C-alpha cells in the first residue's frame, strides 16, 4: 500500500533535486538538457526512494536503465540526494574529465547500469536483463525509462515486440511523455497522441499517471507490479517542469541559462529543505 509519508518523501526529493541542479556550478556555465531533466524528476524520485531495491550492489539489486541518457543530471542529483553519489563527485558534473558527463554512461561502480546517450538502446538491454532473471530464477525487477521522442527509434519497437513475445512481466517500461523533442512538439514530428493504443496493440498493460504527481506515480507502479503481462507506465509530464519559462519550450531541450534566467529559475524552484 502507498503510504502518505512515501508520497511526501518523493515530492520533497523532487523539489530538492530541482533546487540542487540549479544551484550546481554547471548550471551557470554549461548548456544542459534542462527540459528533459526536469520532466522526469518525480519519476526518478519515486523510483529511487520507493521502488528500486538498490541498497545492495550484488546480483539481487533491481536494475534501472536510464535510456534517455540526456536526463543524466536528474539521475546524478537524485542519486546524490539518496546518498549513492558523493557530494565531492557530484560537484564535478560536466568538469573536464569527470565521470559525470551530460549524457549518462555505464558505470558499474556508481550503479549506472547502461549507457543512455545513444537513444533507443536501453530497452533491449532491459529485455536481456529481464530474460536473464527469468531463466536463472532471480527475483530482481528491471525498470527502463525512455523519452517519448525516443520512441521514434526502431530499436525500441524491436525490443517491445520481443518483450511482448516472451511476456517479460518482470520488466517495467516508463515513458516520460512530455510531448516535446529537440526540434518541436512530438505531434508535429512523430505523433504519440495514440500512445496508449499503440502499446495495447503490442500486448502491453498500460498505466497512465501524472508524471509530476508522486501519489499517482506510486499508484501506477503498484498497479503495474501486480500485472503478469508486459507493462508500461505512461507518465504524462511537462518538459522543463518547475521553471516557468522552460515549460513546454523546446528551445530548453539543451541550452545555457543567462545569469538573469538562472536567478529567476532559482527563485521559482526554491524550497525549504
Amino acid at each position: 500500500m502507498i503510504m502518505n509519508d512515501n508520497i511526501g518523501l518523493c515530492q520533497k526529493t523532487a523539489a530538492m533535486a530541482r533546487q540542487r541542479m540549479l544551484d550546481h556550478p554547471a548550471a551557470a556555465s554549461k548548456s544542459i538538457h534542462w527540459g528533459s531533466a526536469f520532466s522526469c524528476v518525480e519519476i526518478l524520485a519515486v523510483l529511487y526512494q520507493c521502488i528500486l531495491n538498490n541498497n545492495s550492489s550484488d546480483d539481487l539489486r533491481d536494475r534501472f536503465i536510464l535510456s534517455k541518457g540526456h536526463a543524466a543530471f536528474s539521475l546524478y542529483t537524485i542519486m546524490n540526494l539518496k546518498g549513492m553519489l558523493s557530494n565531492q563527485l557530484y560537484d564535478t558534473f560536466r568538469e573536464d574529465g569527470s565521470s559525470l558527463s551530460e549524457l549518462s554512461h555505464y558505470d558499474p561502480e556508481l550503479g549506472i547500469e547502461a549507457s543512455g546517450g545513444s537513444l533507443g538502446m536501453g530497452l533491449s538491454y532491459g529485455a536481456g536483463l529481464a530474460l536473464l532473471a527469468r531463466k536463472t530464477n532471480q527475483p530482481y525487477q528491471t525498470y527502463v525509462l525512455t523519452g517519448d521522442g525516443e520512441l521514434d527509434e526502431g530499436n525500441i519497437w524491436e525490443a517491445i515486440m520481443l518483450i511482448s513475445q516472451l511476456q517479460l512481466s518482470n520488466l517495467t517500461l516508463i515513458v516520460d511523455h512530455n510531448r516535446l523533442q529537440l526540434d518541436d512538439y512530438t505531434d508535429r514530428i512523430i505523433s504519440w497522441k495514440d500512445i496508449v493504443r499503440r502499446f495495447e496493440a503490442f500486448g502491453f498493460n498500460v498505466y497512465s499517471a501524472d508524471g509530476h504527481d508522486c501519489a499517482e506515480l506510486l499508484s501506477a507502479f503498484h498497479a503495474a507490479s501486480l500485472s503478469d503481462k508486459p507493462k508500461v507506465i505512461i507518465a504524462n509530464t511537462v518538459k522543463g517542469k518547475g521553471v516557468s519559462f522552460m515549460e513546454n519550450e523546446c528551445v530548453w531541450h539543451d541550452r545555457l541559462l543567462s545569469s538573469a534566467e538562472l536567478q529567476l529559475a532559482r527563485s521559482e524552484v526554491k524550497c525549504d529543505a
Partner: protein
Amino acid sequence: MLEMNSKTLRFFSRMGARGVLGQIVFDYLQEGNALYVVTADLSRASGFDRVKKMYPEHLVNVGIAEQNMIGVSAGLASQGTPVIATTWATFSSVRAADQIRNYMGFMHSNIKLVGLESGLSGAEYGYTHSNCPDIAVIRSIPGIKILCPCDGAEIYQAVYAALKYDGPVYIRLVGRFNLPAIYTDPTFEYKIGSANILRKGSDAVIISAGTILNNALQAAEKLLEEGISVEVIDMHTIVPLDTAIIDHCLNHNLIFVLEDHLITGGLYSAVCEYICALPGNIKPRIAPISIKNGFIPSGTQEFTEKLCGIDTDTIIDVINREVSL
C-alpha cells in the same frame, strides 16, 4: 569437446562453417558450460538445429532484429555468462554498429558475435550480402577481439577459445559447406593473437586470414614451381594483431596482404598501420591483394574472387610482377 584427429578434420571440412559452428556450440553446452545462444532468425543457418532441439532453454531467437539482438545479448551476458549471437556479417557489423560500440565496446559485454557468410561467400545474393566492411567496422571499435578462422578445424578452435575468453569477440565466418582444409595436422596450435606460419618461404610473404588463405597456399605452391619461394602466414586474429610475427616478416623484401575484404580498414590496413608507425626507414614494400570494388556484381564466389583480383591466378600474377621489379 571433439578430439582433434585426421577424422575430425575431414568431418569439419565436410560440414563447413555453419556445421562446425553448430557442432562447437552443441559440444560446449553438452559439457555443461553456461552459455546463451542468441540469433536474429538464423538458428538453422548457424547450424543450431541440435541446440534448438536439445537445449531450447539456452536459445533465444529475437526475430529479424539485429540491433535488438545486441542489446538483449548484453543483458543476458550481464552476469558474465558468455552469449554467442549470430546473423549475416553485414548485419552483425554495419547494421548494428552503434549497439556493438556501446555494449561490446564500451561495456565490454561478454558477447561472441558471429558474422556469417562474410567476404564473397554470399555474393550470389548481391551486394547487400557480400563484401561488407565487417573487419573495418569492428576494428574501429576499441576492445573487441576479431577472429577470422580459415577452415573447419580452426573455426572449432576459434569459437571454443572465444567462449573461454571473458570479453567481447567478433568471429568472422566465410562459406557454408565443404570448406577446404588448411590445417591437415591435427596437433596444430591455436591461440588467440598468435598467428601461424603455414608455409616457409624466402622471396616474399603473404599475410592473410580466413578461407581465402586457400588461394594463398595454392598460389605459393605454383610459384614454387616457377622458382619463387613464398611464405604464408595465417593471421587468424586481426585484433590483437600478432606484431611479433609481423616483425619477423620485415626480414622479407616483399609483404603481400591477401584479404577477401575491402582494402579500407581490413587486414591490409591493420598491417600497414603497424609497420608504418615503426621507427626508422627499413620498411619492405607492403602490397595489397584486397578488394578495391565497393559494391560488386552478383555471382559465384569463384567469379567474384576473380573479378576482385583475389583468386589464385591473380595472386600469382601480382607476386610474379612484384618480385621481378
